């Protein structure tokens, strides 16, 4: 996680609520956000896996694309299949550079008359500038800086929220729609960043605090901070932009080829298609893999990875302790000959070799409502 203690941190619409709940505020992507509440990261993490946890993700960038040709315009910037996405459905995609690097990962959804976008907080200025600069006549980008974003995650999330949002329980994973919840216009998608069933909810900023209080009053819901969000997504094998993927990594190296539409892999008309095509044909030099260190010692991001002879063959990009796994977990890039499940590696933690093995991800099974 990229943290900063800048003096000019922005606040989300829930800042006062976080402080009231005892949140320990830290700087993240320019925002003051709770890293944890008094319960602690471990308890918040485990509660999300067993019941439901509420996260404030209002720092993320929300926008919509409107106009004839919006899908084609977005396809000029991403290898994802945008045009083929049915109304009421959301998809994960990558913004790619002409040289095949990843500019950001993002969600896009077909809301019928428009495409709803959610991008990373640390990249939103870049992304929205990039998208706006590449739009044809008739397609416009509208940022939703007046909307907050909440994530209610865990097996109890949809059962609890369905009482307020009739019809939500019929959504499958990546379903999305608009709801009126007591006068609040909520765009709800059945998705998230934890590996659990759950939803992300976009609501008007000025109604967000009252709405969050309603969610916290639902049975089994407790607030959770950035710390649990990071350990949950790591166990789920999900990438954090800036750590696990960036402008140097390709979709093939990152194991994100599934986010490239089948049609797009025949047309090869997206930014960076040459690199993706070459790496698919000949194999990439390195691959993102899951890593299980032996023992209890976590290996954090930037830990060098060595082979049995001590030669550096990769680097950990995210690592920590997995509360649900009950052991340290990590992901990182290794040279392709070492990428097979079970490959023995040494993680060089503070100069000492910690034995580890390449392991399949996710570390905890996804429990999406398929």
């Amino acid at each position, binding site marked *: 996680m990229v943290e900063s203690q800048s003096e000019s941190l922005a606040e989300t619409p829930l800042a006062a609520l976080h402080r009231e709940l005892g949140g320990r505020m830290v700087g993240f992507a320019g925002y003051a956000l709770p890293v*944890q509440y008094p319960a*602690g990261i471990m308890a918040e*993490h485990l509660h999300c896996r067993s019941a439901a946890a509420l996260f404030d993700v209002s720092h993320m960038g929300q926008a919509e694309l409107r106009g004839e040709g919006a899908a084609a315009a977005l396809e000029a910037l991403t290898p994802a299949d945008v045009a083929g996405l049915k109304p009421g459905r959301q998809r994960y995609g990558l913004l790619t550079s002409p040289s095949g690097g990843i500019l950001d990962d993002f969600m896009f959804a077909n809301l019928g008359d428009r495409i709803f976008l959610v991008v990373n907080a640390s990249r939103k200025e870049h992304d929205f500038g990039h998208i706006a600069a590449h739009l044809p006549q008739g397609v416009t980008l509208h940022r939703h800086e007046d909307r907050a974003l909440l994530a209610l995650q865990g097996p109890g999330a949809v059962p609890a929220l369905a009482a307020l949002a009739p019809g939500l329980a019929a959504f499958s994973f990546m379903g999305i729609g608009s709801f009126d919840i007591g006068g609040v216009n909520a765009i709800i998608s059945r998705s998230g960043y934890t590996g659990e069933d759950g939803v992300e909810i976009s609501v008007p900023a000025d109604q967000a605090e009252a709405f969050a209080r309603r969610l916290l009053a639902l049975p089994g819901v407790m607030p959770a901070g950035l710390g649990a969000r990071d*350990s949950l997504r790591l166990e789920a094998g999900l990438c954090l932009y800036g750590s696990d993927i960036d402008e140097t990594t390709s979709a093939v190296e990152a194991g994100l080829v599934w986010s490239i539409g089948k049609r797009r892999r025949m047309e090869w008309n997206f930014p960076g298609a040459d690199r993706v095509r070459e790496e698919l044909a000949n194999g990439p030099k390195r691959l993102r893999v899951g890593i299980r260190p032996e023992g*209890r010692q976590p290996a954090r991001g930037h830990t060098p990875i060595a082979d049995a002879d001590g030669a550096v063959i990769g680097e950990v990009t995210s690592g920590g*302790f997995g509360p649900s796994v009950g052991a340290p977990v990590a992901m990182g890039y290794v040279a392709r000959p070492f990428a097979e499940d079970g490959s023995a590696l040494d993680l060089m933690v*503070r100069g000492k070799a910690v034995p580890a093995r390449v392991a399949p991800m996710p570390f905890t099974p996804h429990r999406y409502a398929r």
Partner: protein
Amino acid sequence: MSEMRFSKDHEWIRSDGDGATVGITDHAQNALGDVVFVDLPEVGRVVAAGEACAVVESVKAASDIYAPVSGKIIEVNAALTDDPGLVNREPSAGGWFFRMEPADAGEISALMDEGAYHSFVDSLA
């Protein structure tokens, strides 16, 4: 047993006959969060006051632990290997980190007493 003394890095140290026991304060364990691993120093290592000699890993981050005084490490708390959560549950008792043979007992008495440490913590808020 003599009274605890405290460093500005939030370690406590208590003289006990032939040596002194070192751990981290309740304030420190609360700031670190759930401890999942403790990397302890080797017995026999000679450390200087303020030298990083152990690492506490929480779910989120790794943090250095410093020797509050100069001396030699004479014992480490093996119980932390299987139950690092002791640091959170009993920071000033079962969650101790190591015992050392201080080079100069005067270095211990020069550290903060409990009242001074509490004032110091309050001044950080």
